């Protein structure tokens, strides 16, 4: 996927000046629909923003597997348990694909992992909320993955080759996550009174985080314009939120479930959804560390690294003879 894109983490990137000619040639290549590859010249800001974005995406995959992973042991029924394990394995695999894509820009996977665990890097805010019941895990698998797919499909048309290739594989794999999540939600929503109450409560709990998911409105940002021109960002946060609402609110209402926003309706004149702005102060507070699960997510990740160190050391031991399972 990233053939001939190996980057030595100690390598210093060419400090070639950013002349207007170089930037114009770079822009022309993007405008012509060409992909940028790791060896190509790129503006420092392009590199920096992509590292930040792909790294955060990778962290979101790895942290996102935690609230769902919690439910593996308690998934109702063997088939759902198998499917959930497969989904969680996929998410961790997606993190690996993304770390590899980000590495082609010059930041090592180990540095990214360290920045995640020490809290220097962010991940999707939505994973700082707990999956209280099985229905929460169903809503996550359906709607958080749906939101991620809206985002990822848009970004897979972006300009950076390694990221696009990773996203294509990810979107392909996540289509099962979405179906699996929908299946679980439908099962509960068409089930007993208790099951319906459970899934309604989960839907109500997750609505605000889902509205937060695409981020605050960014249509007025100059920064955003540059990123869109470089095809680092493919659509505004508002556009992606609208697309998500358009695709999924009808499906939620179709099940007789309600959403906790009295203003929610499609505006016939504008063709857009009217809604109450979610509490963006809460969003800022949670993303900066003060959410219900921030501390737990990072502590669990740290424990996994600490407890896994001996495995890394063992497989790295050149003298060892019996470290090569092929299961």
């Amino acid at each position, binding site marked *: *996927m*990233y*053939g*001939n*894109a*190996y980057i030595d*983490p100690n390598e210093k990137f060419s400090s070639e000046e950013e002349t207007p000619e170089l930037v114009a040639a770079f822009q022309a290549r993007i405008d012509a629909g060409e992909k940028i*590859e790791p*060896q*190509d010249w790129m503006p420092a800001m392009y590199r920096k923003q992509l590292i930040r974005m792909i790294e955060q995406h990778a962290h979101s995959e790895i942290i996102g597997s935690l609230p769902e992973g*919690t439910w593996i*042991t308690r998934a109702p029924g063997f088939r759902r348990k198998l499917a959930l394990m*497969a989904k969680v*394995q*996929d998410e961790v*695999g997606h993190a*690996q*694909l993304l770390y*590899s894509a980000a*590495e082609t820009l010059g930041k*090592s*996977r*180990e540095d990214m*992992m*360290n920045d995640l*665990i*020490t*809290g220097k890097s962010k991940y999707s805010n939505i994973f700082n909320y*707990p*999956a*209280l019941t099985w229905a929460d895990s169903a809503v996550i698998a359906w709607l958080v993955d749906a939101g991620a797919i809206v985002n990822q499909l848009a970004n897979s048309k972006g300009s950076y080759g390694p990221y696009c*290739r*990773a996203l294509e*594989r990810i979107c392909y*794999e996540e289509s099962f996550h979405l179906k699996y999540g929908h299946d679980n939600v439908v099962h509960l929503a068409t089930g007993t009174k208790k099951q319906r109450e459970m899934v309604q409560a989960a839907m109500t709990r997750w609505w605000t985080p889902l509205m937060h998911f695409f981020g605050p409105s960014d249509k007025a940002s100059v920064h955003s314009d540059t990123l869109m021109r470089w095809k680092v960002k493919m659509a505004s946060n508002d556009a992606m939120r609208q697309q998500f609402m358009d695709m999924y609110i009808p499906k939620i209402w179709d099940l007789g479930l309600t959403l906790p926003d009295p203003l929610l309706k499609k505006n016939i004149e504008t063709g857009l959804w009217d809604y109450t702005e979610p509490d963006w102060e809460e969003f800022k507070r949670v993303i900066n560390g003060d959410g219900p699960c*921030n*501390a*737990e997510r*990072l*502590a*669990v990740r*740290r*424990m996994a*690294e*600490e407890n896994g*160190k001996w495995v*890394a*050391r063992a*497989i*790295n031991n*050149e003298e060892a003879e019996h*470290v*090569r*399972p*092929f*299961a």
Partner: protein
Amino acid sequence: MATEDQTTIESLDPRISRAHLSGGNHEDMTGLLHFQTYEVFHQNKRGAQHKHVGIVHAPNSDMALLYAKEQFARREQTANIWVAPSSCIAATEYADDDIFTTTPEKLYRNPATYKVMDRIQAFKERGMTPSDEA
């Protein structure tokens, strides 16, 4: 890991609660091993070409094969996998991609540029006589 003066995390997941983890540790991780990367080539059935599908991090080729199986053979039908250290791959520079430009004077490589039928037609029409005797 948990220390005496920090509060232990109570989780919805009993396994996490039992681990007695504490939050708020922002220290750098040390001893994270930086494995080299391997390029992975996937063959979906015997007789097909191996296709490059991505990379894995591993300390040796056996582990790279194991990770490649987990990462790239979870769904697709797989007959065989190759791995090779990324550092062993030599590549051309995109900046020099003009070396691959097929110029118009290479038309002799194009089968469609060989047009014999016109000539045969003319030959037949003049009674198949040699060109210098017509």
